[in-house]
């Protein structure tokens, strides 16, 4: 008997009588203004949130902090004038270790927790939003859902190899509960909410 067979037999024998799978009740967010709620929560968890009209405005804002000597990468065609897409291949993923800024698109935001849903087709390489020193996510402003239940309703049975909710810059409070931004991933997260 293999371990698989033994475990499954023991589980089948010991599991209690079947109870029903509950329907998840319909939960509501009290605040009606999703963009305001998203921005407020996102700022609380350490993100910067900026409402922008177009890609030119994004470029203008980012190039105030990032100069020619900084390495900027992106899979987003609209920012290709100042962000490089050439190293975004899996075999070259280790070469991304000196990236200063990565710009990615997000599918939608979640108002209750300031999270952005991203899947690997938007990244080029999975490690992109983790290995960069700073991360910018471009989110369509009207793509905002109230709660995580709504987020999964929107995701539905979408097909992806890898997907991630990103909520804020990487952080830790492991040392005496002192919050430090920039644990292993990006030190800052800027969310651009685009009209």
């Amino acid at each position: 008997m293999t371990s698989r067979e033994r475990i499954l037999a023991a589980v089948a024998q010991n599991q209690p009588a079947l109870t029903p799978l509950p329907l998840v009740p319909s939960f509501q967010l009290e605040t009606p203004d999703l963009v305001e709620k998203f921005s407020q929560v996102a700022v609380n968890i350490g993100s910067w949130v900026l409402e922008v009209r177009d890609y030119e405005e994004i470029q203008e804002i980012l190039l105030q902090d990032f100069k020619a000597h900084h390495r900027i990468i992106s899979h987003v065609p609209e920012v290709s004038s100042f962000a490089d897409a050439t190293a975004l291949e899996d075999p070259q993923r280790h070469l991304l270790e000196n990236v200063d800024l990565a710009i990615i698109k997000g599918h939608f935001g979640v108002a209750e927790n300031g999270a952005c849903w991203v899947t690997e087709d938007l990244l080029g390489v999975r490690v992109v939003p983790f290995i960069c020193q700073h991360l910018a996510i471009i989110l369509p402003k009207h793509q905002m859902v109230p709660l995580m239940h709504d987020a999964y309703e929107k995701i539905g049975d979408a097909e992806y190899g890898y997907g991630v909710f990103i909520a804020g810059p990487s952080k830790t409070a492991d040392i005496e509960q002192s919050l430090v931004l920039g644990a292993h991933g990006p030190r800052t997260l800027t969310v651009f909410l685009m009209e």
Partner: protein
Amino acid sequence: MRMKEEHTKDHAALAEDFNQDEPRVNWHDETLWFIREKRDRAAFAIPDWELLRETASQIKFHTLSNLSQYLQQFEANAQANGMTVHWAADAQEHNQIVHSILQQHGVTQMVKSKSMLTEECHLNDYLEQQGLEVIDSDLGERIVQLAKEPPSHIVLPCIHLKKEEIGNIFHQHLGTEAGLSDPQILTETARQHLRETFLTRKAALTGVNFAIAETGEFVVCTNEGNADMGAHLADVHIASMGIEKLIPRRSDLGVFLRLLTRSATGQPITTYSSHFKKPRPGHELHLILVDNGRSVQLGREDFRNSLKCIRCGACMNTCPVYRRSGGHSYQSAVAGPIGSILAPNLDMKKHADLPFASTLCGSCSNVCPVKIDIHTQLYKWRQVIVKEGYADPKKAIGMKAMNLVLSSPNTFKLSGKAGRWFMKTVPFLVSNQMNPWYKQREMPQPPKESFGEWYRKNRPQHD
């Protein structure tokens, strides 16, 4: 080496050691209470919090009631997604599977993100004995790994250490200057040190927070981004999970991700909630399903409910005993109230002290996001442990004496009188180190008379 297996002291004795340094105990207590307060603020901000808990509890219990089916459904879907699924009956088989995967790839160094299951299995010790190197990448876990200690808390592994001590550990092991204690600088040091590790390791192991039967994907939650850094840079990703981590549907994550971090640290969600569904093209993703006693616990009617646990640590932060005795006094990978109902299932004799490490105040059950009746189970484990003959003999004698006194009204009255007389006349007989109730306590002023005596004098005469 990590903490040795042999138990020379029980929880009470280790708690007593921990209490030698009173300011430090107070600091530990207050730090954890601060997290409990953050949890409260996050939970109270959600009007439907109780409904959310109840829904989570029902989903988890349903999953347990159909676990054999869900395990097979998950396996089939995960395989269809391109993962390799392994089954491990116990800790040793789990460790051997990890070792064999590493051997197949000629890997001798691995990076690992947080996984309490691998602590339970003592994976690091096992691999080190085989000559392999494991580096823990969660900051708190890396700190205790360097200090050669086990984590003292499932969410906050080095909550027992002060920043000056961490500065000292980094000075000894990472060559930083002596006397550092700024958390910002210490974290930056660890970031640089571990970045090198992430970039050079060919294999990464992560834990699993939730596995979805209907899609064959699993979710890993971190704030640091360490699980993703390890897994996405390595050629081989190994994910280890207990069989109780399953949930039926992807949409159920909406319930659990809302509860997990609010209960754990008071955050609305972790920075990263990563959904791994398929391996990166050309790379391997191994998933190990581990039983290690869980199917036995599933068969214990009074205790199976403990398998609903989502490892948020809320019960530890709120527990008056945990806060004042520290995680290491439990001598179990999972400490605190939940650890005290999980550990006796793994080894009842070794962990016989843990169900007694509680005041049964019920705070743990009240904060549990999946509504595990933790304090009721602690009480039930005590009865099992006494019945099986594993109870502390001192406790057994005391209980027999109490039984004698309480079963006869006359003896009870007499002992009460004698007790009051002793406390009033010769207080040193009770207020001494021989009496465990006197430790860290002032004895109360004895009442002049018992309630029975008072009532006889004061009851209305017309009755």
